[in-house]
């Protein structure tokens, strides 16, 4: 009896300790959560669709890419493939943290992987390093606060985004290219980054002018990817990340 109460308290303590680590992530991601909601409406989403995407995909950059493509009337398979491509890095997080989560009951693991975002991955690696193990209560505390706020921000952004009268004056229509440029720059430490970006930029502009939208996305992306696959990188190139 006593030990049950003690262990319940310990679980709650772990949950709160995780949650405190989640708060800075909430603050940093809030503008993007709101922006996603506002832009999704701008690109033809309903508020429910914005909610659904934030709740089920739950990966900020890929959601932005998704609505950017929705706005361009791109083929559905290409939208899904692009979201998959942007999210592919999770495979590495998953492979890396899997060993810390594998002792949990299956349902906890299933939920845990859904919450595995970039910051959650970093927090989990640090937790494993400092404590030697990762508990479910701690992990859920850190992850759930970010998740709930992210979904709420998407809905709030969508509701208020549809009320913005002059989206052009506020630059709403051009925020995505700026954001995407920031993401592109974030990858600049990767091998062959500049030639890949140059190949994709040139190919996508040529395709945009000749074949037309939305094929410039596929053609431009394939140009960069094939270039990277064909041109041998240094053997000590950065690992997949």
């Amino acid at each position, binding site marked *: 009896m006593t030990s049950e109460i003690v262990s319940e308290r310990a679980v709650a303590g772990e949950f709160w300790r995780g949650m405190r680590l989640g708060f800075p992530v909430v603050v940093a991601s809030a503008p993007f959560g709101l922006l996603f909601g506002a832009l999704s409406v701008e690109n033809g989403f309903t508020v429910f669709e914005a909610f659904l995407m934030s709740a089920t995909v739950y990966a900020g950059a*890929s959601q932005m890419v998704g609505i950017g493509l929705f706005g361009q009337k791109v083929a*559905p398979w290409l939208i*899904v493939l692009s979201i998959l491509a*942007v999210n592919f890095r999770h495979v590495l997080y998953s492979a890396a943290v899997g060993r810390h989560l594998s002792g949990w009951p299956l349902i906890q693991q299933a939920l845990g992987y859904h919450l595995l975002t970039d910051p959650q991955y970093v927090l989990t690696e640090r937790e494993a390093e400092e404590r030697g193990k990762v508990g479910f209560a701690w992990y859920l505390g850190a992850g759930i606060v970010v998740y709930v706020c992210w979904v709420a921000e998407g809905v709030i952004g969508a509701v208020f985004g549809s009320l913005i009268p002059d989206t052009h004056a506020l630059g709403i229509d*051009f*925020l995505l290219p700026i954001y995407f440029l920031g993401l592109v720059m974030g990858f600049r430490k990767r091998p*062959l980054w500049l030639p890949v970006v140059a190949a994709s930029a040139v190919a996508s502009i040529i395709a945009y002018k000749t074949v037309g939208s939305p094929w410039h996305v596929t053609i431009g992306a394939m140009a960069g990817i094939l270039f990277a696959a064909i041109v041998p990188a240094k053997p000590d190139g950065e690992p997949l990340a």
Partner: protein
Amino acid sequence: MSVNIWIILAAAVATYLTRVGGHLVISRFDRIHPRVEAGLNAVPAAVLTTLVAPEMINAGPAEWLAIVIALLVSLRFGLMPMFLVGAAVLIAARQFMA
């Protein structure tokens, strides 16, 4: 259900597979072929570039100014400062250059 909903759900499944897939699959392989790895490494930058470059063709001076300044900021600072400065320049430039 609308096409949008199906696309969102398919994207959700694809994303979830990346989150469990590493643990289920990749950890069983010793290594990925270097060319495949190089190609995968290039995917995000390649896809994202195609969403920026053609926009530059359609854009005007206000957008170019915002992009160039955001680019410069991104050389030193993270995504958030870069984005906020870019947005601020864009809004200001559209007020005064339109």
